């Protein structure tokens, strides 16, 4: 029988919670098999965090295989710098969810505020609803799938990884992009400096299909547009003017 560890933020502080997740959870040997949370099923400890009530920095800096369900809306920096853990927020989140994510999965069942997945190096961030501005800013290799739309300046200076947007993208998408790739199913308001639409190849369709499958989001991958860097700002030149 599955054993779920319940931690109630109505009684614990965030510091006590994180301390448990950092130092005690890796030693817990219980097995979880809970379908329908993050989608991850495995022989890992399963934790439910109750009454998050918009608190910040919940489940940050985790570094152990585990299944974490946050039951309710949460604040800023949820699941920051995550490694290995599979974290699901059953609600909305504030700024910078899964910032600097290294591996594992972070799933937001609702919507995310600004800077979702900022500077993420690896792993997968899924936002089932909308994400606000600067989604995927500075990303460095993580994958982000947004079920809805993203706000302005999304994927700003994104260096590596993939941002999949099933809805629309706001102004200045992909400004100063490096080697990250963006796929958008809906309308693109405008491109930022050095970003451009490029033809979808079979490899692009396969990449989108794979990420949609991993995210549990049903969408035709052939509907997406590919956005990547023109690479015209990789070297200084006088014609670029204000782009610098």
């Amino acid at each position, binding site marked *: 029988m599955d054993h779920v560890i319940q931690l109630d933020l109505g009684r614990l502080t965030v510091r006590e919670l994180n301390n448990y997740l950092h130092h005690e959870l890796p030693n817990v040997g219980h097995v979880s098999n809970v379908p329908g949370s993050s989608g991850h099923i495995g022989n890992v400890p399963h934790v439910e965090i109750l009454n998050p009530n918009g608190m910040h920095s919940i489940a940050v800096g985790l570094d152990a295989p585990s299944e974490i369900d946050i039951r309710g809306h949460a*604040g800023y920096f949820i699941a920051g710098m995550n*490694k290995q853990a599979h974290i699901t927020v059953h609600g909305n989140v504030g700024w910078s969810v899964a910032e*600097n994510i290294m591996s594992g999965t972070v799933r937001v069942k609702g919507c995310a505020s600004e800077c979702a997945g900022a500077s993420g190096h690896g792993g997968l961030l899924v936002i089932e609803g909308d994400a606000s501005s600067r989604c995927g*800013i500075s990303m460095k290799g993580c994958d982000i799938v947004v079920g809805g739309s993203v706000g302005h300046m999304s994927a700003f200076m994104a260096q590596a990884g993939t941002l999949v947007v099933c809805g629309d993208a706001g102004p200045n998408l992909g400004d100063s992009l490096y080697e990250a790739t963006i796929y958008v199913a809906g309308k693109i308001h405008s491109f930022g400096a050095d970003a451009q639409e490029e033809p979808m190849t079979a490899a692009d369709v396969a990449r989108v299909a794979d990420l949609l499958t991993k995210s549990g989001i049903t969408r035709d991958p052939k509907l997406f547009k590919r956005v990547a860097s023109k690479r015209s700002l*990789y070297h200084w030149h006088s014609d670029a003017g204000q782009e610098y």
Partner: protein
Amino acid sequence: MSDHIHREESYSFNRHTLEYIQHAAEHGLYDIRGLGAKRKLPTFDDLVFLTASASRYPLEGYREKCVSKTVLGTRFAKKPIELETPVTIAGMSFGSLSASVKEALGRAATEIGTSTTTGDGGMTPEERQSSKTLVYQCLPSRYGFNPDDLRKANAIELVIGQGAKPGGGGMLLGQKVSERVAGMRTLPAGIDQRSACRHPDWTGPDDLTIKINELREITDWQVPIYVKMGATRVREDVKLAVKAGADVVVIDGMQGGTAATQQCFIEHAGIPTLAALPLAVQALEEMDVFGTVQLIISGGIRSGADVAKALALGADAVAIGQAVLMALGCNSSSYCQDGERVDATDDYAKLGTAPGYCHHCHTGRCPVGITTQLPELEARMTPEWGAKRLKNYLQVLTMELTTLARACGKSNVHHLEREDLVALTIEAAAMAKVPLAGTNWIPGQT
């Protein structure tokens, strides 16, 4: 008309300005260079100590002990930083500097008992291994930033800006973006890399509070968190950093150096270190946290006298960057190879400069092998040789500091105080908020 009129140089459009305008017209791009402001500014040289005499008595300069131990990060961290000297090494990136130089900094700092700091390129294994006390910078670019290195750090420095370019982001030109540097930064090798000037996951001071809290949660509240800023609106900025929860505030004056940025930034943004320090102290006093939140000042610190004056004005420690590079041979006419001095003036000439004038860190072709990623140049500065030189220099700074402190009658360098100083110029008196020598006059106050 006389020849005098025919050959009169314009003050506004002098030869320097003409060259600037004609260079801009020729190339259509602004100038980029390394190091710090070259213009004449009020500095710590404009202050002198009122050492002991009949009204104060000194300590024996060669016998009595003068404590230089420095503790940073006592406000919230479980493990504050404990140093043997208040002279710390400022953040400089692997990328701008070679891996050998980073290793040399770590070795020297460890030997002398102080800290060194990473930079805009992440933490190298050489640096971590060689540094007993290593401060890990969290910069807007977040190049190479990761939780494993974060947990290895002895302190975290959240960088909002630096004195050479407050409000601007970092820059590393393609010739320095080697495969290793590019790999650590997740960028293609050889591109002209432009770092962000704002953090990707927070913007205003309220967000900063939450960001600091997140870093504390990730590191279990163990290590101090510094907030580093370029000196502009210092009083307001220090108060915001304190309110956001900083353990240590680092203020970098406009003389602070850089590996590369726009010349217009270096010479025209920020305020001098001398003016910045009293404003930071004032902010801490007004928040009633002077002594609780420690203050590090940087930007053009060169000598033990500079360090002593900074401490007398209220700093807990200083950070040095450019002077560290100069101790390693920056702007020297030669470098050391197998124990022999080798002349490097031709290599300076190839850059269009000469020893004593070079600021070509941005080119990656440092004639003495410091600010380079080219293996043949990096070999000109070995970690062993560099560490010895830097250790000597740090030792001299600390000796000069304690010498001056003893002469002021202090058995602890942190007992130096503003009352020990007077200014030689009206400008310095106004900025440092100490009396003009021979008077009781502090411009703007008395």
